[in-house]
C-alpha cells in the first residue's frame, strides 16, 4: 500500500510560531491541518513536502462563536463536520452546514478543516460558494501581521490564492444575513454519497421590503471554472426586476453561459454546464422559499 516519504516535522504551538516556521523553511514546507488532502497527495506521490508544520496543537483556532448583531466567527481549524453539526451555524447560516454535510464522507468530514478546504484552493471546493454568497471574510496572519481578506476573489487559480508565502488563515467571519434572506447550496456528483462535486451553486437572496423584487442577490459556482467563481451577471439578471419564473430561468441560463468548466475524467464541460443551469434554478427556488419564511 502507499507509504508517505520522510519529511522534517515541526509542531507549532502558536500561529506566530507556525508563520515563522513556514517562512524559515521556505519552499517545500507545508502547513498540515486536517491532512485529508495533503496526506492523500503525499501518499499518491503528487506532492513531496520537505517539511510539514503541524498546526493542530495551536489553541484557539477550532471554535465557533457568535458576535451578537454581527455574525459568526469560525476558527480555521474547525472540522467540516463541526460546521455540519454546529447548532450556531445551523441557526444563522444553515446553508454552510448543508454544504459541509455534502462533502466527502462522515469520517473525512471529521478530519478536514474549513481552513484546509479553502486554503487548498480546489476549484471544486464545496465550502467556497456559500462563503462567497454570504460575504464571508477571512482573518489571515503572516510575517507582515494580520489582515482581513474577502472570500470573493480569494482564489487565483487551481491551488493558488492571494495569500503570501507563510500566511495562514486563522478564522472566518460570516456576517448575518439580513431579514428576508434565504440561502441554498445545490450540488451534484455522479453518485449519491462520498463524491466530488461536478457542479455546485450557492445562492443568497434578500427580498426587497416592497414589491416582488430582490434587494440583494449573490450567486457563486464551484467546479465549473479555474476557481470558485462569483456569477455577477446572474446577479444582475436577478436584480433587474421582479423575480418571476421566467427571470429565474434566464438567470439559470446566464449561470450556465458564464461558467467555464473543463472536460476531465469526471465529466464533460457540456454536462457540467447543463448541471449549472439546473442547479441554479433549483437553488434560486429554494433560496426564495427560505427568504419567504419557509423552513426548508
Amino acid at each position, binding site marked *: *500500500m502507499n507509504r508517505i516519504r520522510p519529511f522534517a516535522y515541526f509542531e507549532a504551538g502558536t500561529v506566530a510560531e507556525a508563520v515563522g516556521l513556514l517562512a524559515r523553511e521556505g519552499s517545500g514546507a507545508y502547513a498540515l491541518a486536517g491532512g485529508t488532502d495533503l496526506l492523500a497527495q503525499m501518499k499518491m506521490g503528487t506532492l513531496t513536502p520537505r517539511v510539514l508544520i503541524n498546526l493542530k496543537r495551536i489553541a484557539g483556532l477550532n471554535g465557533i462563536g457568535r458576535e451578537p448583531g454581527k455574525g459568526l466567527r469560525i476558527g480555521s481549524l474547525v472540522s467540516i463536520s463541526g460546521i455540519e453539526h454546529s447548532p450556531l451555524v445551523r441557526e444563522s447560516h444553515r446553508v454552510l452546514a448543508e454544504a459541509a454535510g455534502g462533502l466527502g464522507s462522515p469520517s473525512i468530514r471529521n478530519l478536514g478543516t474549513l481552513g484546509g478546504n479553502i486554503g487548498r484552493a480546489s476549484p471544486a471546493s464545496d465550502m467556497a460558494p456559500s462563503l462567497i454568497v454570504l460575504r464571508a471574510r477571512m482573518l489571515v496572519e503572516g510575517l507582515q501581521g494580520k489582515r482581513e481578506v474577502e472570500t470573493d476573489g480569494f482564489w487565483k487559480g487551481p491551488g493558488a490564492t492571494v495569500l503570501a508565502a507563510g500566511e495562514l488563515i486563522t478564522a472566518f467571519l460570516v456576517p448575518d444575513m439580513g431579514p428576508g434572506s434565504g440561502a441554498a447550496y445545490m450540488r451534484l456528483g455522479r453518485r449519491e454519497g462520498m463524491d466530488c462535486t461536478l457542479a455546485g451553486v450557492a445562492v443568497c437572496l434578500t427580498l426587497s421590503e416592497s414589491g416582488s423584487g430582490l434587494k440583494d442577490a449573490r450567486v457563486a459556482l464551484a467546479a465549473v471554472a479555474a476557481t470558485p467563481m462569483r456569477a455577477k451577471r446572474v446577479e444582475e439578471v436577478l436584480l433587474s426586476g421582479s423575480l418571476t419564473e421566467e427571470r429565474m430561468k434566464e438567470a439559470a441560463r446566464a449561470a450556465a453561459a458564464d461558467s467555464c468548466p473543463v472536460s476531465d475524467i469526471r465529466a464533460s464541460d457540456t454536462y457540467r454546464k*447543463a448541471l449549472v443551469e439546473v442547479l441554479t434554478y433549483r437553488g434560486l427556488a429554494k433560496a426564495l422559499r427560505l427568504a419567504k419564511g419557509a423552513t426548508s
Partner: protein
Amino acid sequence: MKTLYVGKSVPRLDGMEKVTGRAVYCVDVELPGMLYAAVLRSPHAHARILGIDTSQAKAAPGVKVVVTGKDVPYTFGEMIKDQPFLAMDRVRYVGEPVAAVAAESELEALEALRKIQVEYEEMPAVFDPREALRDGAPILHPDLAEYVRSSIYDIVPGTNVCMIRRYSLGNVEEGFREADEIFDDEFYIHAVAHTPMETHAAVAQYAPLENAFTVWSSTDGPHRRAKELAGSLGVSLNQVRFISTYSGGGFGGKGSMVAEVLAVALAKFSRGRPVKLVYSREEELTASQTRHAAFLRLKTGMKRDGTFTARQADIIWDKGAYASKGIDVAYRGMLTIVGPYRIPHVDLLSRLAYTNKQCGGAYRGFGTIQVTWACESQMDIIAHKLGIDPLEIRLKNAYVDGDRYINGQVLTTVGLKETLREAGREIGWGKPKPKPDGTKVRGTGIASVIKPTATPTDSYCYIKLSQDGSVVLFSGTPEIGAGQKTVLAQIAADTIGVPLSSIAVPNVDTAVAPFDSGTTSSRATFHMGNAVRLAGEKVRREILTIAAEILNTEPDRLSLSEGIITGDGAGEGKTLVSVLAKKFPRGGTILGEGHYSPEGSPLLAAMPGRERLSSIFWMFATHAIEIEVDTETGIVRVLKVAAAHDVGRAINPVLCEQQIEGSVIMGLSNALFEEFRTAKGRILNATLADYKLATMMDLPEIVPLMIETYHQEGPFGAKGVGEPAAAPTAPAIANAIFDAIGVRIKDLPITPEKILAALHEKR
C-alpha cells in the same frame, strides 16, 4: 432425508472471526523474517525493453532482493502460457511488472524502485479490439504459435487473435428467411474492475534445499494455482503449497495468479525469508485483471407472434495483453448469448483480440454479463417493435423442463418461468405508471439470465472424525466470502449426523486438502457439497458399523443424529463419543473420502460431439427493476429490484440472499457508476474516488426471491447462486429507462451524459 441444518440460515462459521477483527486475510499475514515487496511497472503500453540497470537499487538501504524477467524466465496461464512472471523482452500494457524489489520495509522497497533504470523503445500500440483484428495492427504476441497450450483451440498465429470459435445449430439463413422481422443491433459493454476491498496480495517463501515454495494467498482456486505454478517452474505438485487466507473479496479477480508470481520470483532469491507483496489500490485498478469489454452484434429473426426463428451473433472480446481465463470466458459467454430461449437456428462467432491493456480475467458471470446485456436489451427492442409486452415475450420463449439447449442437452429443473412470474409480481408489472414527479420520470424493466457451471470439474474432500467426536473437513474450496465453509459444514453435519458445532472447516492448505477446482463458476455448493455428502456418508456408515459391533446388532438397525445413536440395542440412545471411546481407547481416526465430478452423468447427454457444451446444472434468474430518471440532470436512481433466482435448494437461505442482494449492487454499480477513463492505454482514474463504486447511499429496495426446483444431482437439491445476479441488472435498468423516457442506451455504462444527449436528440 430430514435435515436439521440444511435449509436453515445457520450463522456463518467465519462470522465470529470477522466481526471481532481476528480473521486473517492475505494482507494481514505476518511471518518471522518477512521482507516487503514493491514492483516497478511499465509506463508504456507497448515497448521493447532495451536494458534494465538494477545495480543502484540492489545497493539501496534495506534492499535484499531485486529481480527482473531474466531472473525468472517463466510464463504462466491456465489455457496458454503467454504471460511472463516479469516482462522479458517487451512490455504489453501500462503497468506490466518490469522489476521487483524485496526489502526490510515497504517504504525502503518503494524507494529502491526509483533507483532502477529501464531503457524502453516504444512501439505502436493498439487499444481497440476491432482495430487489433485488422491487417497491419501491431502484434502483441508474434510468438503465439510457440507458446505452450493446455487444450486444443484455435489461434491464428501472426495476428492478435487469442481465440476464435464458432458454433452453429441448424441453418440461420433458413431461419432468417422464415422470419417476419429481422433485428440487427450492435451493443458495447465496457471493462470494469473487480475492485475487492482487499487488494491482490501474496506471501511467498522458498525452501532452497527442497526447491519448494509455500504461497499464502486469497486466491479462489489454490489447487489450480499450485498446479499452474508447479507447471511454470517445472517442479512437482508436492513442491508447491498454497495456503489460503480469508479473502477480502474475489469476484473472479483472484481466479488467476496476479501477485503470487511476483512474490514467488522474489522469494526464490531471498534465502528463505518470506516475501510479502500487497498491491496498492492504484495497482489493483490498473495492473490486476478486469472484466472483458466486448462489442456484440446480434442479428435475430422473429415471427410476428414473438417466437424466435434464428440468431446470429458476432462478438469481439477485448482480451487485453494476456489470455488468463479469457479463452473460456469468450467461449462460454458466446454460448449463452442465445439467452434462456428456444431458438431453432443459431450461428455464433466469438473472437478474442489481444490489446495493449490490463488483461481481462474471470469476472462474476464469466461472459454472461456481457452477452446478457446484448440479449436482454435486444429482447425489449423486439418486444416493443412487435407490440408484445416484454414480460409476455419472455414467458412465451422461456425454456421449460424438457427443452433442449443448443447442443441438445435436455434441460431439467428449469425454474425460469417461475422467476419471471415472481419478479414480475413483486415489482407490480403491468400496474399503471405513476405520473412524472416534476422532472422525475419512472419506468420498469425486466431481464433474465441463464448461466451454466463449468463442466466437468472435480471436487475431492476428506472428513476426519477423531475419537472425541470432533470433525475436520479438509476441502480445497476456499471461503471467499459467500459462506462456502458454512454450507459445507451444514451438509456434513446432516449427512454424518453430528451437531454443526462439532465441525471445523480450516482454510485450504493444498498440502493437506485433496484436489478441488476451486470456488468459481458458482460450483462450490454443488460439487464440493456432493463430495462432502459422499465422504460424510462413508463416515456415517463406518460409525454405524462400529456401533453395531459394540451393540451387537446390524448397522441398518441403527440411526445417528446430532451425535446420538438410536435404534436396536442402543437403549435410550448412545452418544457417538461413548462409542468412539470404546473403539479408540488410545485415540483413533475415522477418515471418509469423497470425490465428485459430473463427468459421465446422463444429465450431460447431448448431440454427438457436442457434449462439452453441457452443464451439470443451469441457473436461471430474472430481475425486475423500477427506476427514476431525472430528465434535467440525466441521473438515474434505482428504486427497487425484485430479484428472483432459481437456486435449486437454498442450503442456507440468508447466504443465498447475500449473494443475490450483493450481486444486484455490483450489477447496478457496474452499469451506472464504473468506468475506466484512459489515454494511450493509461488509466487516468485509478483511485476509488474516481473509479466509483456504489455506496450505501445508492442502495435501492432489494427483494430477493428464491425459487427451489430441487436438482436431482445437487446435494439436497442445490444448484448455485453466486454469479447469475450480476447479469440481468444492467439490461433491466436499460429496459426501465426505455420504459420511462423512450431512450435506448446500447453501450455501457449508462451515464447521465448519455441520457441527456439522447433526450436532446429525441426533441
